[in-house]
């Protein structure tokens, strides 16, 4: 029958086409990677990896710094990047749980599997603060392991830098000494800069934040978190919650901080009713930053507060 022949012809054409595509892809130079190919989920981690890796590492950041890293899509481009990675650098503790496992699984790359040296989970290297998601009603957003927003803490980032330098050295032994030296230097700069900034801030500052994503400021600046704009983590501010915040904080002094991607309405309400100043701040440095970008971000955070 003629259409059976057509089908055979179509099948042959398709098979030929497929083999040509397959060969072309196999033979394509898989991007002459300069040294370690590192994929970092957030730009804070990317900044550390760039500082430590220098010219011996190529760093790609997945999460755009002006987006909430909780809620991203496991994009095809993420899987393409992870497919070629020697190392995956993540925050962990549930920050990327909505998308990273799918991207990691879809990358077909053993080097970055959980448990492999090429998988660096920052939360495993440090002690976490307790997450307030454990207190409230369980709304499907519970960080049992602890608060994953430690990118706001340069002291913890310093610890991570040291651990990261060591790990990168394991993956690329030829450069182990250089990585370790740069990691130590980065850790020192983080600690010193934190100390310098903290000394300039007026003592006993009280702040209201949107989510628990700036809680770690308490760890290195003279601040105390006195309220959250969200009634429970992951739930947008409600009028009732904002009114109760106002009545609790009336007559006191403080500052309101929230992330650039969070809606400003709650902060504006408090600003009007309490007379506090409010600031939208970035949570991570620009995507292509090295350590300087992160140090600048620390300065931005510290300078939203009244200075001595």
């Amino acid at each position, binding site marked *: *029958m003629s*259409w*059976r022949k057509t*089908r055979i012809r179509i*099948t042959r054409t*398709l098979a030929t086409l*497929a083999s040509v*595509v*397959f060969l072309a*892809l*196999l033979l*394509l130079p*898989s*991007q002459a990677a300069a040294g370690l190919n590192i994929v970092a989920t957030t730009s804070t981690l990317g900044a550390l990896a760039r500082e430590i890796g220098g010219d011996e590492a190529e760093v790609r950041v997945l999460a*755009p710094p*002006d*987006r*909430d890293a909780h*809620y991203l*899509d*496991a*994009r*095809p*481009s993420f*899987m*393409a990047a992870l*497919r*070629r990675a020697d190392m995956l650098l993540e925050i*962990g*503790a549930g920050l990327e*749980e*909505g*998308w990273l*496992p*799918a*991207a990691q*699984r*879809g*990358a*077909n*790359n*053993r080097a970055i*599997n*959980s*448990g*492999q040296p090429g998988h660096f*989970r920052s939360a*495993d290297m440090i002690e976490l603060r307790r997450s307030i998601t454990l207190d409230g009603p369980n*709304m*499907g*957003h519970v*960080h*049992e*392991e602890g608060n994953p927003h430690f990118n706001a803490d340069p002291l913890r980032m310093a610890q991570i830098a040291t651990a990261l330098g060591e790990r990168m050295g394991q993956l690329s032994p030829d450069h182990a000494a250089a990585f370790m030296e740069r990691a130590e230097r980065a850790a020192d700069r983080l600690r010193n800069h934190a100390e310098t900034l903290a000394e300039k801030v007026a003592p006993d500052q009280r702040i209201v934040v949107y989510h628990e994503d700036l809680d770690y400021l308490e760890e290195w600046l003279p601040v105390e978190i006195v309220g959250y704009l969200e009634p429970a983590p*992951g*739930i*947008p501010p409600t009028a009732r919650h904002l009114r109760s915040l106002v009545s609790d904080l009336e007559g006191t002094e403080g500052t309101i901080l929230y992330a650039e*991607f*969070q*809606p400003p309405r709650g902060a504006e309400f408090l600003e009007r009713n309490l007379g506090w100043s409010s600031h939208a701040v970035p949570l991570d440095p620009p995507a292509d930053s090295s350590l300087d970008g992160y140090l600048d971000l620390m300065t931005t955070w510290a300078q939203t507060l009244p200075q001595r």
Partner: protein
Amino acid sequence: MPRTPYTRPVLAGLTALTLAAPGAAAAQWSAGSEDSSWGVDVSLILEGIYFNELSHGNDSPAGFGDGHDHGHDHGHDHDHGFDDGFNMGHSELALNAQLGDLFDGVLILGFDDSDIEVEEAYLTTRALPGGFQVKAGKFLSDIGYINSRHPHDWDFVKRPLVNEYLFGDHGLHDTGVQATWIAPTEMYTQLGVELLQGDQDEGIAAFDSDLPVSSKSGPRVATAFAKFGPDLGADHAVQFGVSGGYVAQTGLAEEHGDHAHGLEGDAWFAGLDAVYKYSSGRAYGHGDWNLKGEYFYMRQSLDQYEGHEHHDHMDWERAGSLATKQDGLYLEGVYGFAPRWEAGLRTEALGLTNDAVEGSHHHGHDYFEVESMGTSYRHSAQVTFRPVEPVFLRAQLSQNDFVDDHGHRDRGLEFMLQLNVALGAHGAHRF
């Protein structure tokens, strides 16, 4: 289709291994740990649907009625046809475990108020070199886009017509093996092939055992697919897919007391799919866009058989051959019009090309013939509210504009209210 004598034992072995995996992994239960690298994640998805048929139209689209629910007693009502009033919807219990970094094991049980079904039970390798991955067990085929997604990932209450009527009430969903390869390129490129048993009750690979032709040994379905996703920066993401498959045996039989008639043959299908997502960067999905569409085309090449009862058994003879051509598509868009609120529209066409099998009666003689039939449409609009991350409430209005086998068009209107809650360690979503 080329088949080696090894295929069957290999398939059987891999399937057995897959079925055993969740059991073995359950021994290393570590509930509650965020670091789930070595434990079992359990999630429960519960769904309830309120359904109201505002006006009744044609029940099924022309040219697809026969192959769809012909002669098969499903024995249960897990076919997602809703009753007026409250319905259990489609609930799932999903277990996900890792065997070191060698395998992922997945078991997904789908259930409603009366039945439990193993929807998926498979192992995927995680440690193959060179960007390869093998999946074995019972799984949803990766052809197209919607076929491999579970209902709680959909943006509309019901499965698209093209997927339901070409591949069945659960899509192309079968036992077999899949191999995929991710190219080490800047642009996401995935190539995959699947060998499936072809054990389908409905759709393109359904086969009726009453036919005089012996059932070919499995695997009877082979598919291939490719997906491409260029990097478009932080705001835009897109994925294009092309897929196709060959079905070595398909067929149906109809008995009418002292005589019967049937069709047996092979089939192939091919399709295109695309998905585009825009991320506005604002909180709670406000301003995000999500557009997708799929087109599938299938052809069947069938031999006709006529049976006459003779001394308590049916004597069959071959009587000519037929070729069918059918297709379908859908396009849908969803927009986050406010924080936590989405609205979407979907338009579907089934049988733009619709040269389908039709039962005819002429001079006291029953036989099948191919007839060119009309196109059926369905249009849906939905509004979804997501009060907290794992919960959504969706209201949907659908107009069925189906043409029947005799060319009569009749419109029906349906209203659906869907509540879907994901409890436990809800896994990450694929793009």
